[in-house]
């Protein structure tokens, strides 16, 4: 078996483009270019942008070195280099060197003030990567073009996108109902949001119907003119707008297929997947669409109750009604509406990928189809299982199929891992345990927050996971097949799966204490309620006490947990403003000391280092040492303490 083999593209099948096979390279490049650049010259309409509120102007102080240090710290050393062969590994020492860092910061600042992005940073190479699990690879759509850029340009892009992420969430431009491409928003959030709506709907005897839709070739068809208008609406100042207009102009693309490289093609639409801007820019592009949709729904004479949720190019329309007829009508009209808006901005919806699904608890419930013929779509028939964002939903929300899918996947991974060693040779049990905990547990527990909460039916799911962990424990310890699960789990050092879930769930709840006020989950919670936000029909606060008592939903658990937390967090406080933080201004005066590992030897070295550093600060009259520590008592309450030392005295 070859571990590091390069993935070659399929050779037997030729790519078909417009019904003709591409037999030579020239035809192949043309096929690729015309399908990834298909949105070229697509007409767009920008009139509805007038209805979107202009956001507050964004304060843009000059870049500081610390921002670059933070950005490069998150970069993977294994990622592919751009055309100039420089990887993050090579750039790291450059950024650590103070003189070089200042020069890089100078260039970045000049780019923003002049509003110019040099062509050297635009030089890019598009690598064609097959999308996984396709039955046939004979169309260009089965592949994903990934753009490789020069690392230096990418670093500056990262710093800028970091600021955009902060500011656009802080000034409220981004809509709470879009969950992709934005920091602090995850698929789990989208899942929990949907779960709560369904469970709360059941409390009020409403069933939930959803339509999932997909946008064809999302990233390559984003229109630059429309994007510039969106950026202006988001409150970016003239210099930065000029920078982005320049950033998108004069783009060219080179395609790479196996070892062959094409000539340059000029591109006029789209954002390269691989550039640091692609998540945030796609989110900015979607914001006015969702805002307009919500506004149009509100302005209709007849009221339509429909909710929208979007995760990058996967959208979801939700309707919660008592009768299926009503929800079908609502879904149809909202689908039609969103279709029109997408066509206006040059995006194409793939009708044949749209799916409909009804959630209900009733016995023998009806399962009506939805006819989209009149707007050019097919008739949507609900399937028994619906896959969305990697979650497998069934109609009663017991997640048996979801857990079964992931548990089976992990059992087959475990079977494959058996080749790495047995009880005689190969990996040691410690290493096997590490492998299990890092490579299998996170996969098998994906999305457990959706089905693991108080009052949910979890017995069958946990039994399935237990079976999986039993197999893993057998592999780690090399024990006999009939050994009792609890015993070998203890020997292998694994926590029983239900306790593990409980632990993870508790930590997950705490995360919601730090989310921004405009987060979608916050709009459902009864505390932390943002006054300006439109109240959802099924928030916790909207339920009666009796319904609340009966309700089973992850949001209820989160709300109970958050009620016990007294500390307040504000992620958009001005001291977190990138470029204006304390570390940005005084990065050379602040030194952090933290231990490398918790082994005794390292700790000893660390403490002697700390002593030296402490004495040094106390000798000089300007030095200050801040010592902090935190601990959790056995009773469960956590405490933290900090001392400020100056001239060998505690000053605070």
């Amino acid at each position: 078996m070859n571990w590091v083999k390069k993935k070659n593209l399929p050779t037997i099948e030729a790519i078909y483009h417009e019904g003709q096979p591409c037999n030579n390279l020239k035809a192949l490049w043309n096929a690729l270019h015309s399908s990834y650049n298909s949105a070229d010259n697509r007409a767009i309409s920008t009139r509805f942008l007038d209805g979107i509120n202009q956001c507050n102007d964004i304060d843009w102080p000059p870049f500081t070195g610390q921002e670059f240090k933070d950005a490069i710290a998150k970069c993977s050393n294994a990622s592919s280099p751009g055309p100039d062969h420089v990887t993050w590994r090579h750039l790291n020492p450059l950024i650590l060197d103070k003189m070089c860092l200042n020069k890089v910061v100078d260039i970045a600042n000049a780019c923003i003030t002049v509003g110019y992005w040099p062509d050297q940073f635009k030089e890019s190479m598009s690598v064609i990567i097959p999308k996984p699990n396709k039955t046939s690879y004979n169309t260009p759509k089965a592949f994903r073009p990934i753009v490789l850029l020069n690392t230096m340009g990418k670093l500056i892009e990262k710093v800028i996108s970091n600021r955009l992420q902060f500011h656009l969430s802080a000034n409220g431009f981004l809509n709470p109902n879009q969950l992709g491409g934005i920091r602090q928003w995850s698929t789990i959030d989208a899942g929990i949001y949907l779960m709560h709506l369904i469970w709360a709907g059941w409390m009020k005897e409403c069933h939930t119907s959803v339509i999932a839709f997909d946008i064809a070739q999302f990233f390559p068809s984003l229109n630059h003119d429309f994007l510039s208008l969106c950026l202006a609406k988001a409150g970016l100042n003239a210099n930065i707008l000029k920078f982005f207009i320049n950033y998108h102009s004069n783009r060219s693309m080179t395609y790479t297929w196996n070892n062959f490289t094409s000539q340059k093609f000029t591109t006029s639409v789209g954002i390269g997947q691989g550039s640091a801007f692609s998540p945030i820019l796609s989110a900015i592009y979607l914001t006015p669409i969702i805002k307009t949709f919500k506004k149009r729904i509100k302005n209709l004479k007849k009221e339509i109750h429909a909710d929208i949720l979007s995760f990058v190019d996967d959208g979801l329309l939700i309707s919660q009604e008592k009768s299926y007829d009503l929800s079908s009508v609502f879904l149809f009209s909202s689908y039609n509406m969103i279709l029109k808006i997408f066509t206006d901005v040059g995006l194409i919806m793939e009708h044949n990928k749209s799916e409909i699904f009804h959630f209900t608890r009733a016995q023998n419930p009806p399962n009506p189809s939805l006819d989209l013929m009149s707007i050019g779509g097919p008739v949507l028939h609900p399937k028994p299982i619906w896959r969305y964002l990697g979650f497998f939903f069934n109609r009663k929300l017991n997640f048996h199929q979801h857990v079964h899918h992931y548990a089976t996947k992990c059992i087959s991974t475990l079977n494959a891992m058996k080749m790495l060693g047995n009880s005689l040779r190969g990996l040691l049990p410690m290493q096997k345990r590490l492998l299990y905990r890092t490579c299998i547990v996170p996969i098998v527990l994906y999305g457990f927050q959706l089905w693991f909460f108080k009052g949910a039916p979890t017995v069958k799911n946990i039994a399935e996971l237990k079976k999986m962990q039993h197999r893993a424990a057998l592999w780690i310890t090399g024990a006999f097949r009939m050994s009792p699960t609890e015993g070998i789990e203890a020997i292998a050092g694994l926590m029983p799966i239900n306790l593990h879930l409980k632990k993870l769930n508790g930590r997950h709840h705490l995360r919601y204490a730090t989310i921004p006020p405009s987060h979608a989950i916050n709009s459902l919670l009864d505390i932390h309620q943002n006054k300006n936000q439109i109240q959802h029909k099924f928030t916790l606060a909207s339920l009666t006490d009796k319904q609340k008592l009966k309700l089973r939903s992850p949001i209820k658990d989160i709300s109970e947990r958050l009620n016990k937390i007294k500390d307040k967090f504000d992620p958009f406080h001005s001291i977190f403003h990138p470029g204006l933080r304390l570390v940005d201004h005084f990065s050379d005066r602040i030194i952090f000391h933290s231990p490398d590992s918790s082994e005794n030897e390292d700790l000893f070295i660390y403490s002697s280092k700390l002593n030296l550093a402490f004495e040094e600060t106390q000798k000089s009259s300007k030095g200050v040492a801040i010592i902090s520590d935190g601990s959790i008592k056995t009773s469960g309450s956590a405490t933290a303490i900090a001392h400020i030392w100056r001239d060998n005295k505690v000053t605070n």
Partner: protein
Amino acid sequence: MRFSLKKDLINHCNINIIDFHNGQDVQCIINVYSDSNQTAIQILHDNIRNISNTIVMTGDFNIRDSDWDPNVHYHSIYTEDLMFIADCLDLELATPINLGPTRFVDNQHDSNSVLDLVFMNPNNSGFNKHILKPEIRLPSDHVPLFIEVSIKEENIDFTFQTLKKDSNNEKAFVNDIIKGVKNMDTSHLKNQEDILRCVIAFSSTVKDAWSTHSTTKRITKHSKEWWNEQCSACINKYHESGDVAN
């Protein structure tokens, strides 16, 4: 060079089209077995437009014709179709260096015949130079044909430039870049030209550093990217002692 069987062009058990790339172009080889009904000839005739850049077409065509077989005194009706196909592919019938029958019969009634043909482009240096080797046909009734085909004279580059992880070259590469960046003047960047000048200086530094410090490597099947010197030392130690602990 990667060979692939192109089933998408013609999917038939009697016709194999194999194509390969030589750096720039895609070229293909066509192998034909035409049965007594000449179905392969018909299929080729119908689909000839899909195929391009053929360097050689060869196989058992099962056509007896006076053009290539001196023992036969008639023209076959299929010869015209075959010649049309060859014309479309820009190929011509090649004659072997040692003329002779390519199919030997095992009974006394029939005579040996020429059925296996080679079509090539007359500009190809291998044209008219194929050899029949009846001595090595063994129990087969067909004679093997030996063709030497010159594929466009071009060097297929299977070497690439690389920089080994944690090597001295890599350190020198990084040091060169750092030195180059330190020499850049970024104090007064007022307009596009200033920025462009700076960025060009940076990219040329990188390019120079890359060309001086990268090493040329051949791509082989056995490239192990994760293997480093530490691993070699470890495996040597293990081979010497045979101890699992090592």
